[in-house]
């Protein structure tokens, strides 16, 4: 039984089709990387998954729930920027991941203390404990994105959506963010969708790579048709999943 189900989704803005006939099913715990040229509806697709927009046709369902009407606790999101609250300290940003759902948006008394302790654990795991009382604007881009991911995970979403989260980072920071994300995933077993421009990143991190492209193209009217998923690669084991030995060999292997 698939966890995230996208059925026959169409999306158009003012009669200009962006997505057409998108069907995909993703299992719980899978990491789906989404790639494609600019303007091919990747971000639109992510917004549909987030329920920030509703499709003109078709439906997006998570865990067999009825299609959501607005973003909610079951979907976490990390944008390329503006993902953390600039007016809260780093620690408060993590606490906000748990407290915004409450009536006044904050914890009081004993609960507040406990939440701060939990936040400090999260910060220690994300390597941000030394800047706990700083404001996000004083952090580097990579630290801000780590904070954004930590904050999204503090809310314990069922699906994590990443919209080019590492797009603005330098290559070195990007590699360490990959490690960070892979560790977190190994820990939580979370279902992840990530939009990226970087094919290498997509194949490195993803279990599947979904390619968005326009299957039909009218040279006289390039915006006539929308995009859809044209390829759905199995990206496990570096994209070559069927070249694995099916049986264990019983030959002594010196190097192990």
């Amino acid at each position, binding site marked *: 039984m698939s966890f995230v189900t996208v059925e026959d989704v169409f999306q158009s803005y003012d009669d200009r089709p962006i997505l057409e006939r998108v069907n995909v099913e993703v299992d719980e715990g899978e990491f789906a990387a989404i790639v494609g040229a600019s303007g091919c509806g990747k971000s639109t697709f992510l917004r549909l998954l987030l329920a920030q927009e509703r499709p003109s046709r078709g439906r997006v369902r998570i865990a067999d729930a009825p299609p959501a009407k607005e973003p909610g606790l079951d979907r976490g999101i990390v944008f390329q920027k*503006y993902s953390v*609250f*600039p*007016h*809260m300290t780093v620690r408060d940003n993590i606490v906000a991941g748990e407290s915004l759902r409450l009536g006044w948006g904050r914890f009081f008394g004993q609960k507040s203390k406990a939440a701060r302790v939990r936040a400090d654990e999260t910060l220690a795991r994300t390597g941000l404990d030394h800047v706990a009382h700083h404001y996000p604007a004083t952090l580097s881009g990579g630290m801000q994105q780590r904070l954004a991911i930590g904050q999204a995970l503090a809310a314990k979403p069922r699906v994590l959506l990443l919209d080019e989260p590492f797009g603005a980072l330098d290559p070195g920071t990007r590699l360490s963010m990959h490690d960070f994300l892979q560790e977190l995933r190994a820990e939580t077993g979370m279902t992840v969708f990530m939009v990226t421009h970087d094919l290498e990143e997509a194949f490195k991190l993803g279990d599947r790579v979904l390619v968005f492209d326009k299957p039909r193209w009218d040279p006289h009217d390039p915006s006539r048709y929308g995009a859809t998923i044209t390829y759905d690669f199995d990206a496990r084991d570096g994209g070559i999943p069927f070249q694995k030995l099916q049986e264990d060999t019983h030959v002594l292997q010196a190097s192990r």
Partner: protein
Amino acid sequence: MRLINLKPGPALTAFLTLLPFLAVFIAYAIGSEIRLAENPSDKLLPAPGKIWDTMVSLTTQGDRRTGRILFWHDTWASLKRLGLGIVISSLFGLVIGLMIGLLPLVRSALAQFVAILSMIPPLALLPILFIVFGLGELSKVVLIVVGTLPFMIRDLSQRTLEIPEELLVKAQTLGASSWVIAIRVALPQVMPRLIQAVRLSLGPAWLFLIAAEAIASDLGLGYRIFLVRRYLAMDVILTYVLWITLLAFVIDWSLRWASRRFFPWAKEGL
């Protein structure tokens, strides 16, 4: 070296800052000197020394009839009206501005209405305010509110709209209700802008205060200026003008200090 690359050092900066003040003072002193040389009882440009004497007697000597030092009573009366007006209009401005910025339903209902309201010249309403609210304190406070509120609402709703969409979506994915988004995400981000808006509104607020006091009052800085105008008492008028300027400057400065102190994450303002 190009002119745009010439930067003054600390000493020169201090001198250049003081220069226009000095220049104005010297120009005034010379003008006063010339007029007084021709006619020692000239009232238009009293000598700086005379202004100083007036200043001292105004701030220390009581009124002959009542014994009250009118200068401080005037100041207190005016500041009360100004403060009350500004507080009321920033409270309403904040609430209505947040609602227009966050709630599309309220935006559709009120945004155009407020835009039209802000076009009404407040001073043209002054007679109506005097008729409706009487000549007491209320009409003066209402004039300040009427004069500054539409600007506050428009400014704060604009700032609320400028909060990145990403932050609002993020808050929703963390389970925040509209109310929580308003008080935990939008309100704190708009607060520095509120202080900024108050700073910008203080100029018009003083204008409306003095206008209202000039027309109907028995106490207040504006009332006193327009009262002593009849006797051409330039020394008193200038003392009051300098005092109002100083008050406005101190209020503005402390608001800027408060903004930096309480909202250190916000980008530095004007």
